[in-house]
């Protein structure tokens, strides 16, 4: 099996006049993962995908797909992609659009088209004009297009955009099933709970810069959140903030939020007892990717 990373970038930069859309991005995406690309609007996610897909010329830096820096066309023939809203020919049907892209790819059969339409839930609408499709149906056709030719690497930019909740759940399951040993999914989404459910690893961008990278578990390790109410919240927050394994303790709306490993909840209780503060309510759990994301991107914003 090919052990090269499927995507490797070094100092990838894109500047539009005075605006630095992507700033020296270096990342490595291993094979066989669902890899999430996160970032607020304007953080450079779509520009990064555009550069990797040969749509946008990097200002500087370099990248390789499947270990190759030179033959971009050959590499792209092993790739499937949806960038932003999928765009197709409005005067063709869904099936004719897929047949066209299959035709220019030069491989595949009519049977493959049937299977793909079935897989994305468009079997009964495949012969309707693309101009009659809803946004959710366009996304489904986009995924069928991305899967044409059984690509080894999938770029999916906001693939659940415009879908109803059932469709989103279905799509998440499909994406999860696509990230197998032989296939890598590079997913960009602003739905953090979606990324948390689907991705093995994530990269977080802010203002074009990489600010965090790792598996979801690694990023959230030690980032538990304990929520409590006490007989003296102000004193409780002071006592807990002084503990070296507590990252943060603050009061919001009559509740103390403590950032600490959830498995140390008993030690929190004990520390408060020693200070003669008594619990009236306590819940603990793992911090969400959303909280982590909001925190890290706001810190990055404040630092600049």
């Amino acid at each position, binding site marked *: 099996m090919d052990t090269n990373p499927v995507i490797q970038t070094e100092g990838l930069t894109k500047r539009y006049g005075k605006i630095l859309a992507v700033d020296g991005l270096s990342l490595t995406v291993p094979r066989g993962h669902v890899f999430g690309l996160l970032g607020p609007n304007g953080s450079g996610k779509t520009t990064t995908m555009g550069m990797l*897909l040969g749509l946008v010329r990097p200002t500087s830096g370099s990248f390789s797909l499947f270990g190759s820096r030179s033959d971009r066309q050959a590499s792209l023939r092993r790739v499937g992609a949806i*960038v932003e809203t999928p*765009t*197709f*020919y409005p*005067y063709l049907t869904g099936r004719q659009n897929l047949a066209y892209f299959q*035709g*220019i*790819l030069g491989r595949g059969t009519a049977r493959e088209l049937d299977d793909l339409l079935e897989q994305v839930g468009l079997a009964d609408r495949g012969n309707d004009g693309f101009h009659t499709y809803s946004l959710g149906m366009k996304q489904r056709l986009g995924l069928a297009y991305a899967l044409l030719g059984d690509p080894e690497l999938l770029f999916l930019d906001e693939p659940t955009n415009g879908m109803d909740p059932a469709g989103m759940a279905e799509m998440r399951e499909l994406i999860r099933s696509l990230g197998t040993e032989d296939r890598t999914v590079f997913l960009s989404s602003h739905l953090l709970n979606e990324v948390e459910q689907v991705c093995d690893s994530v990269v977080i961008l802010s203002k074009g810069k990489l600010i965090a990278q790792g598996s979801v578990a690694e990023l959230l390790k030690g980032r538990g959140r304990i929520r409590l109410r006490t007989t003296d919240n102000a004193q409780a927050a002071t006592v807990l903030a002084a503990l070296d394994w507590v990252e943060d303790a603050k009061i919001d709306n009559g509740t103390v939020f403590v950032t600490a490993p959830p498995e140390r909840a008993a030690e929190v209780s004990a520390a408060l007892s020693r200070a003669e503060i008594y619990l009236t309510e306590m819940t603990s759990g793992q911090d969400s990717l959303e909280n982590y994301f909001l925190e890290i991107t706001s810190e990055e914003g404040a630092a600049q």
Partner: protein
Amino acid sequence: MMGHILRLSVWEWHKLRRRWLPWVLLGIVVILMQAAVWGAYVVHRTEPFSPNYSFSTSDEVEGEEVTLFAADWTCKDVRGDRIPPEVEDLEEELRGKVLESIEEFRESCAGYEEVRGFTGNALLLPNSILLAFTLLQGTLFILASIMAAAALGGEYGWGTLRTVLTKGTGRWQFLAAKVAALMFTALVGLALAAASVALSSLAIGAFGLEGAALQGSAEWLDVPIKIGTLLYSFLPYVMLALLATVLTSSTALGITAFVVYYVVESTASPILNNFAWFQRVSEYLLSPNVTAVLQASYGEVSVSIDGGGDAAQPELLHAVLVLAGYILVFGVLTFLLFQRRDITGAKGG
């Protein structure tokens, strides 16, 4: 590589023929060509431009002027050995006088009869096809360029360039396939338009064409030559339309930029030709060279479409090379620009 471009061209052609626009443009071409051929036939048949001759003789009877005989004739009435029937019943002396006048009129009709014979011949196959193409070539350039701008501009408008290029299709290969598919579509369009003219010509031949030879004087080989030179002449205009479309990323702006260039060059050139200093420049402009290439393929159907002015027509070889230069320059600029520009989402128009 060539196989890949060929495959792309075939699929571009599939895409083009499923759009309304090429069919609408073909419909316009066929209607205009039919109008040209049937219009020429109506003119030939009704002879509205025939010279007239009025004959009148009178005598004085009991102090009053009395008209003995009066008639208005056109060349049609005296064509060949024809004698108008009203002359037959005249008295011999008057008849002799009238016949003498008719003979003089018949001689004055000779020039008109020659032109009429030519237009009659022009309605026969294969002359009629050459005539129709010649009369409409300016329109054909504009329609071909509209099709080119729309074929590429649509990709920008719908945002489909991104979808095509992320499937491993090289940019220059895609553009080359686009040009190939456009030229093939133009070839099919011209062939269908020629076939429609041929059908009309056969119908006109069946009605009979007085004054025309039984068969047109051009050769059938002149038709593919004419179509070939038309396609060659389309290329610089098609590349110009594509360049304008890539520059503006829009069908509408691409067509506008092309039409402005075409109209300015076609109208300013004949005016500026009146200045000696401009005549050297004119030799290298697009439209005089296109005209020179096309006039070399008129066959016997020589209808002047010279823009006017005093400039001499460029030599054929010079014209062919200048057009090749334009194709190369517009082509290279289009390919370079298309290769280097970032591709964004749908532009919507």
